[in-house]
């Protein structure tokens, strides 16, 4: 296994209202992998992602980031986050939305502009730089959100059920585009989902989580060749993995 990008050891998370979201959670994210966190809704998957992003403190246990340089050992600027909703500024154009992380960091305007154009091109939105979010479809807004996460050249990309609210056709397209980007850029990805099919299709490894309070119940490595495409979706191998992961998920939810 490659070296760990981030490690969570025996992590508990209790919210102020008394809800125990996570209990004794261990998770290690290896460099370059595409890891999916799979679990029933409300199991704390999003909580894990937020902790990894440094949005919130653990109640017990520890998180360690490799190469941390910022507050609390967090690698500032090395993490990209894509929320469940596109979360765009409605008053700003596509260009300015993608520019935001660079502007916050004080990157020089010329360099920032070329990086923004590059990120917009990566998600296939050339020509929409000056459009406002309300003029875009759901899938396009999500692309803008992904471009914004990519513009800082993150080492670790965190995606919180990013395609959950999209129709299946758009979701398949975005799945494929995400895989293509991942193959070319080799980031480390942590992808939160409640879809067995999506996690098997995308991941190199799936961490199955229990119902709340969440912890990891087991790992499934998906050893399917890259690049994956639509033929993989209908292959017997894919079906076998789906069956295996579904069984694991059922066990974890029951236990």
């Amino acid at each position: 296994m490659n070296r760990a990008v981030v490690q969570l050891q025996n992590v508990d998370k209790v919210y102020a209202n008394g809800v125990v979201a996570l209990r004794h959670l261990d998770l290690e994210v290896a460099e370059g992998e595409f890891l999916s966190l799979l679990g029933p809704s409300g199991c704390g998957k999003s909580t894990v992602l937020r902790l990894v992003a440094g949005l919130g403190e653990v109640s017990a246990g520890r998180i360690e980031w490799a190469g941390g340089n910022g507050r609390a050992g967090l690698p500032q600027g090395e993490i990209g986050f894509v929320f469940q909703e596109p979360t765009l500024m409605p008053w700003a154009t596509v260009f300015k939305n993608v520019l935001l992380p660079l502007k916050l960091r004080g990157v020089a305007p010329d360099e920032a502009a070329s990086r923004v154009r590059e990120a917009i091109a990566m998600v296939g939105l050339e020509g929409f730089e000056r459009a406002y979010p309300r003029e875009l479809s759901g899938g396009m807004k999500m692309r803008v959100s992904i471009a914004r996460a990519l513009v800082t050249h993150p080492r670790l990309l965190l995606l919180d059920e990013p395609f959950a609210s999209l129709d299946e056709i758009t979701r398949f397209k975005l799945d494929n585009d995400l895989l293509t980007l991942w193959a070319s850029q080799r980031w480390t990805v942590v992808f939160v989902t409640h879809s067995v099919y999506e996690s098997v299709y995308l991941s190199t490894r799936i961490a199955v989580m229990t119902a709340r309070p969440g912890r990891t119940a087991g790992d499934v490595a998906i050893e399917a060749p890259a690049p994956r495409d639509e033929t993989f979706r209908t292959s017997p191998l894919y079906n076998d993995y789906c069956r295996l992961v579904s069984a694991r998920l059922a066990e974890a939810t029951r236990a």
Partner: protein
Amino acid sequence: MSSMPSVEPERAASAADVRGIGAERPTRSPRWLDLGWAVRRALPPVVIGLAGLVAWELVVRLNQIPYYILPGPLLVGKTLVRDWGTLYPSLLVTLAITGAALLVATVAGVLISILFTQSKLVELSLFPYAVILQVTPIVAIAPLIIIWVRNIPVALLICAWLVAFFPIVSNTTLGLNSADHNLLNLMQLYGASRRQIFWYLRLPSAMPYFLGGLRISGGLALIGAVVAEFVAGTGGAQSGLAYRILESGYTMQIPRMFAALLMITASGIFIFLALTALSHLALRKWHESAVTREG
């Protein structure tokens, strides 16, 4: 950085998305430039207004009501033209106080809102007093202010300001606190400072709320100015429209009273339309309230 290894699926995807929004995208000709639409929209209220004026004139003539009880609209119109030399300078005085009060209310209101959002404690401590200022009738405290402040225009300004500032404070405070939670998280993730969060997120989020408050305050500033003028009752060169109304009442020049009233109403309508246009210009690109939809 390397570009996409296989560009084709990406292209196909975005092309399909593009077709999806092509239909949604409005053709950008503002609706108010469409003459037919404007006429259809304006015609009903204009017809009602004209009918009302005709009825008024008829009632006055048929019942032979004397002009010092109720002048007909034609007489009011004539008086407006004849007394323009007296009324117009008064209009300017009233509008100057209204404008200045609205300006001060905007600046002070926004600054107070920003202060409120800096800490919950400040807001909890001060907001009740803003409410007290708002609910105390201006007619009741105007005499005090006029006694305390010797300079009459300044006293009038303070009265008008007291009436006008509350909607701006309460709306802008609400707006500054309404920033999208996920966007706040995102800003934190990228290490944004408090100042950056304020400028890039809170302030734009508050814009529609602020403009809504401003529209209410514009009308209130005029009402505040007129009420304060009534209480002050000043004469001489610096007299506003309210004084002209008082004066006309004393001297039984009822048509002139109506003419001054007409000017105040017209000013209020003008202020409302101007602020509505400003709000539309500021929000037309992105906010639901200002976006023209087709179909």
